[in-house]
């Protein structure tokens, strides 16, 4: 694989996570348990869409075919999306949303810390900005994990269920393939597999403070590195891409 092809796949992977997670968090508007949380969740959605925008703009530039970030977000089919399966999972109840956010934000906090040192100046600059937002998202998610885990019996049960249900999507975060190897060798991006130890030890700390148990490793779902998703992604894209697909000549 050429350097350019590998970099394009990497940037699509990095751009699609915040795009799809931002979509999911945007679905919380007017549905959160309290007004302050409605604002917090949509504020995170805004950070994520902003990050998706700059990364996909860079992906379009790397691709060099004159596409824009909007073309990549709104005109790409589901088999060419590379977000992790975790982020496309439905919002579920508030505990599900918090568990999903905890897993991904903890992962991103380590990934983007490394990415700040990227030899690719654009990715390094993006990472410097993103890390501040990611740290806030992680704090928000871990605070709620602890509150719910150590709140009432009902909230403890719901939070544990959410952790257990989403656990099988966490293995994928650390999958490392030839593209990651190539990008790591060029000093552009970290190897996801190398982040697992730190991530797991952070999970142990947070879950123990929350009086929750860490699930066994168990079976892990896979597929998104090759663009193979859960059924949920198709509906997300149908929703998201509707206007651009229905009015292909229009500018908005």
């Amino acid at each position, binding site marked *: 694989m050429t350097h350019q092809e590998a970099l394009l796949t990497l940037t699509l992977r990095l751009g699609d996570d915040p795009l799809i997670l*931002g979509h999911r968090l945007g679905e919380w508007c007017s549905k959160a348990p309290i007004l302050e949380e409605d604002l917090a969740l949509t504020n995170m959605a805004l950070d994520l869409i902003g990050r998706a925008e700059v990364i996909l703009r860079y992906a379009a530039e790397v691709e060099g075919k004159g596409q824009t970030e909007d073309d990549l977000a709104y005109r790409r089919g589901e088999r060419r999306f590379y977000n992790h399966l975790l982020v496309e999972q439905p919002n579920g109840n508030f505990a599900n949303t918090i568990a999903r956010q905890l897993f991904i934000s903890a992962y991103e906090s380590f990934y983007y810390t490394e990415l700040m040192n990227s030899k690719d100046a654009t990715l390094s600059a993006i990472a410097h900005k993103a890390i501040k937002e990611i740290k806030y998202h992680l704090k928000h998610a871990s605070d709620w994990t602890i509150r719910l885990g150590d709140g009432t019996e009902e909230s403890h049960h719901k939070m544990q269920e959410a952790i257990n249900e989403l656990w099988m999507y966490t293995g994928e975060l650390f999958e490392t393939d030839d593209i990651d190897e190539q990008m790591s060798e060029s000093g552009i991006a970290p190897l996801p597999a190398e982040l697992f130890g730190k991530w797991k030890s952070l999970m142990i700390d947070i879950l123990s403070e929350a009086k929750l148990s860490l699930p066994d490793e168990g079976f892990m779902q896979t597929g998104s590195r090759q663009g193979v998703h859960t059924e949920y992604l198709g509906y997300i894209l149908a929703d998201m891409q509707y*206007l651009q697909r229905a009015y292909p000549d229009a500018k*908005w």
Partner: protein
Amino acid sequence: MEHIDHLKVFETKIEQDINIEAKDWMPDDYRKHLIRQISQHAHSEVIGMQPEGNWITRAPSLRAKKILLAKIQDEGGHGLYLYSAAETLGIGRDELIQQLHDGKAKYSNIFNYPSLTWADIGAIGWLVDGAAIVNQVSLQRTSYGPYSRAMVRICKEESFHQRQGYEIMAKMMAGTAAQREMAQDAMNRWWWPALMMFGPHDTDSPHTGNAVKWKIKRQSNDTLRQKFIDKTVQQAEVIGLTIPDPDLKWNEEKKSYDHGEINWNEFREVINGNGPCNRQRMSNHIKAHEEGEWVRKAASAYSNKQKLRVSQ
């Protein structure tokens, strides 16, 4: 005699345009009027998130999605300041929300209309927020301090909202035939409800008397409505939209527009619960509130445990 002195002090302050503050003595009816008005305003900000939230996942570009997300957060933030302003009058947010769910408190009628196409997001920003600004600019001089200061802050953000709405409309009017049709259709559906936002004609307005005397309300419904029409007609013309009112015409003598009669029958029906979305808006709010109860309970249980741990 004490009571009469209090009233006199209050009335003198009103007369001299000195703000009434939370700890000042105020007549019961003044307090009640403010609670009713501020809570209605707060609920409107919050319920207003629904028709706009309806388009977050379908916003047609990443930029448009970011702007819409930011705008809706502002509205929620306005709801928070306004609930806080109401709290200074001695009523808590839980009680205000309960009144909303019981149908005792109202929210702006406009949010009982549906947002059907992307152009509706433009029309809401431009016309609905545009009408709200006219009212809120006037309320910056309202006599109750916490409400007046909330308005100053809110007005700064609302003018950004109005511009973003107008930008959506302008872009669509400069776009394809389908986009222009969508924009005009949104204009046709939102124009009259936007005019109704100012409330009944002055001669039929049940709350105006005391509110004017106490300087809660600084300008009448019809005066504010006229201001809105006069500033909006030209904005519509610039981008090629037609105002859906055959009787609208410039009146040289009064230097403003005459307009056709508003359908007050529709206004009353929507207030009485028969708008296209009354049920949907309220059931969404109640559902979210009920589904979130376990989360709120958990947060307060956790916070109590923490307090206990600190004290031990």
